[in-house]
């Protein structure tokens, strides 16, 4: 525990730099050790050119190099010093723990293994924005290539890789987009905690994730991934060396989400302020916790699926090879048992952010807190029972399509509750149209479209036609991007003052908002039409009959792209030179607005005591 009860924030003991190794380690040393490990592993295992099992051996060497990089980096940045010292009976001193928390180190602490949840939150925020920027750029290239039929701009090999890398980059980014920055920075303050339950694990979750980023990028230099982000076997078994990067990324990422998920859950369960009963917990905390808790059982199946893909590729185990008794359906099951809960892992925090924001900007209590919790719980519960709706047309036991259709369509009931909570909260209120609130209205529309189109897709006969078409692509972008990402951006606008001490530039924010939202509608309207008309997804070229729809989509995509560049400018500019924010610019009642900026190392000078939920707005409350 770095939470030091006795140390006052004024007398900071600085550890003797000469004495402790932890003061010398940072990202750079991590990278050096990581690269040494990776190169060492590769050269130890690299096959001779005339090896009869060249491809298996090459896969083995590459996978080992990538995983060694991750381990080496973590060693090099000092992630294991704490446990190691504990193991040899010389636990870290109070000073060293304070040092690990980044006390008094300024900007340097962002590049170190820092246990302060606020530092981790900022690391996640910057990391997520970088990933979204990369993923978004790939989307621009995909759309550019699809602007006209023929696939002339980008060749099929590169196009297929773009599709997969855009997918997996965005999925990873979206899984952490809310629970990473806000779950780490804001959430502990919101519940009145001094830090996370396991601060070292918190740092670990970020740095493990960080090591996945270069691994994923390496796919570009290894021939790319031709499989899309779903990485269906046996195509993934057939794929070239770039596939190893995908496998290693998922293995690493699954560790990160497990660590982060346990940590956030434990923090919320164990570290709430005095008096914060479960029905007084801010709704964002509930949504974010359900999201990460849902990820804990979900991701191991993806990890397992990838382990099996790896052994198929390295040892010819044949889990997914029908020729030796395996089955591609096995992969599809493992993947979607993760894949569908994962959609809600992404969505729940986004909606929860909006539920946190709406009462503040309407000055009304959250409408039916219980309905919100029920909605989240219902979605989380049902989401583990619906995976095979992705497999209606796979041919796997068609008789089970009926039951899966029932569970899938049942999700519309708890989803309806989420709408009810948001609409009930704005009902009879005068919404204060700041950026976060605009985002809430955009999500209502986008999620409505995403939800209704989801009902068609959940219907077996309709899915018989729509599955694998651009219609599906448009549908899930409405939910994941239109709803979850817009919700996260609303959260950024809302918490920006607390995380940076400055206000997000409003005008740029508005410009960005309208560019993104209008462009988004155009982009996916074109895709809905093309899909309904029968254009398959993930195609590098298409028949001439879809050309106008695709051109419209591309135009919309460029608008979205420009909108997000403007947002990025607004974030960078405001972070450096924005208006200084007051402590509580929105007049909100949650705890994070009771602490100053910069937030003190242990958040609160005096532990807060909670006597009511934070939604006591309104006349007669």
């Amino acid at each position, binding site marked *: 525990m770095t939470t030091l009860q006795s140390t006052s924030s004024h007398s900071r003991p600085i550890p003797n730099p000469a004495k402790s190794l932890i003061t010398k380690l940072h990202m750079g040393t991590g990278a050096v050790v990581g690269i040494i490990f990776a190169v060492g592993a590769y050269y130890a295992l690299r096959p001779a050119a005339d090896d009869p099992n060249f491809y298996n051996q090459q896969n083995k060497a590459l996978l080992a190099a990538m995983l060694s990089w991750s381990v080496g980096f973590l060693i090099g940045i000092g992630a294991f010093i704490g446990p190691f010292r504990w193991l040899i009976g010389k636990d870290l001193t109070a000073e060293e723990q304070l040092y690990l928390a980044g006390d008094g180190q300024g900007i340097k602490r962002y590049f170190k293994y820092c246990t302060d949840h606020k530092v981790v939150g900022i690391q996640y925020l910057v990391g997520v924005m970088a990933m979204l920027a990369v993923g978004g*750029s790939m989307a621009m290239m995909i759309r550019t290539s699809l602007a006209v039929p023929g696939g002339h*701009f980008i060749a099929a090999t*590169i196009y297929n890789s773009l599709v997969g890398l855009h997918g997996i980059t965005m999925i990873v980014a979206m899984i952490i987009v809310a629970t990473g920055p806000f779950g780490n920075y804001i959430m502990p303050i919101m519940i009145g905690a001094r830090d996370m339950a396991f601060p070292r694990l918190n740092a670990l979750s970020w740095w493990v994730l960080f090591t996945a980023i270069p691994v994923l990028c390496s796919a570009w230099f290894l021939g790319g991934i031709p499989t899309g982000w779903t990485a269906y076997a046996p195509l993934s078994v*057939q794929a070239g060396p770039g596939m190893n990067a995908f496998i290693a990324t998922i293995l690493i990422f699954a560790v990160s989400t497990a660590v982060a998920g346990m940590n956030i859950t434990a923090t919320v369960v164990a570290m709430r302020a005095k008096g914060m009963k479960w029905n007084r917990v801010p709704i964002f905390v509930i949504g974010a916790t359900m999201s990460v808790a849902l990820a804990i059982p979900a991701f191991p199946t993806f990890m397992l699926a990838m382990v099996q893909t790896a052994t198929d590729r390295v040892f010819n185990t044949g889990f997914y090879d029908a020729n030796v008794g395996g089955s591609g359906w096995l992969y599809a099951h493992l993947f979607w048992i993760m894949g569908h809960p994962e959609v809600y892992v992404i969505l729940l925090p986004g909606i929860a952010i909006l539920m946190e924001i709406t009462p503040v900007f309407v000055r009304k209590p959250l409408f039916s807190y219980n309905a919100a919790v029920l909605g989240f719980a219902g979605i989380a519960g049902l989401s583990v029972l619906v995976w095979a709706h992705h497999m209606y047309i796979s041919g796997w036991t068609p008789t089970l399509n009926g039951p899966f259709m029932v569970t899938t369509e049942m999700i519309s009931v708890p989803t309806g509750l989420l709408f009810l909570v948001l609409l009930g909260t704005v009902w009879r209120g005068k919404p204060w149209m700041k950026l976060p609130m605009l985002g809430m209205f955009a999500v209502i529309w986008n999620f409505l479209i995403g939800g209704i189109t989801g009902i068609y897709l959940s219907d077996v006969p309709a899915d018989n036609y729509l599955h694998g078409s651009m219609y599906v692509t448009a549908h899930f972008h409405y939910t994941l991007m239109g709803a979850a990402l817009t919700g996260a951006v609303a959260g950024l606008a809302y918490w920006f003052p607390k995380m940076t001490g400055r206000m997000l530039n409003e005008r740029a924010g508005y410009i960005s908002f309208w560019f993104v939202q209008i462009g988004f509608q155009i982009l996916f309207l074109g895709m809905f039409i093309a899909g309904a008309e029968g254009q398959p997804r993930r195609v590098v070229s298409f028949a001439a009959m879809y050309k106008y729809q695709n051109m419209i989509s591309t135009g919309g995509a460029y608008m979205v792209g420009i909108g997000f560049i403007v947002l990025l400018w607004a974030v960078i500019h405001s972070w450096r030179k924005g208006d200084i924010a007051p402590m509580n610019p929105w007049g909100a009642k949650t705890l994070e607005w009771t602490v100053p900026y910069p937030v003190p190392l242990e958040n609160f000078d005096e532990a807060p005591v909670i006597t009511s939920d934070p939604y006591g707005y309104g006349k007669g409350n």
Partner: protein
Amino acid sequence: METTTVETSSSKRLISALVFVVLGVAVVGTVGFTLHSLSADPQKALYATKSSETIVVDGKTYPKASIALGVYADSGQAADYGHYTTNKKDYVQYGPSTHLVLPAHTFVTVTISAYDGGEHLNNPYFGKVVGTVGGTINIDGVDVSNVPSDNVQHTFTLHGIPSSSQDPLFVNVPLPQVKADDQDNFIATQDPKTNFKGHTVTFSFITGGAGDYVWNCEYPCGDGSYAKFGAAMSTYGYMSGKVTVK
């Protein structure tokens, strides 16, 4: 909401924002055009040689054109037969180019010199000749309409996306194996320097209007990968390519 305004003039802000947007677009654009340049054909496009002759098929007159290709077990063998390529290592490959440019509405005669061995097709359908004039191909002087699926070394299978903007074109030509016992102890993949002339396969088909098509081999020759369709089979520029009719 009380905020303390930090002094930055609004015009300065605007310029900063505009510059940022332009830079952002430029960065994404640069990456895009880099990918575009990486998307270029691995080899120079191979143009069909047009001839002044014409031919009448089914009562219609077509101009004639011809094009010659080779199939090699690896780049070393390709070099030995005069089709030096910069293609990598041991991948089986077509040469001299995998991007073919054919004239529209033309009787195109293709000659493929095939030097590789083989096992058997994943899908026996591709042992059948489809889409050529007369439904046959000429193998070393003999017309056939079918090659047994266990006697195929590679196929030349041309297809495209059915679209209102271009005429349909589907051609499937199986190439017979060079057998180890064709010549004493000859194994094509291991001894490219053997003086063996392989099989010469000639066939003709008639192109429609302008359009973009692709071709690929349907014989599983991506060794070491699932269904033998990875590696050379899934890497653009070896056993697959483009056909532009214009």
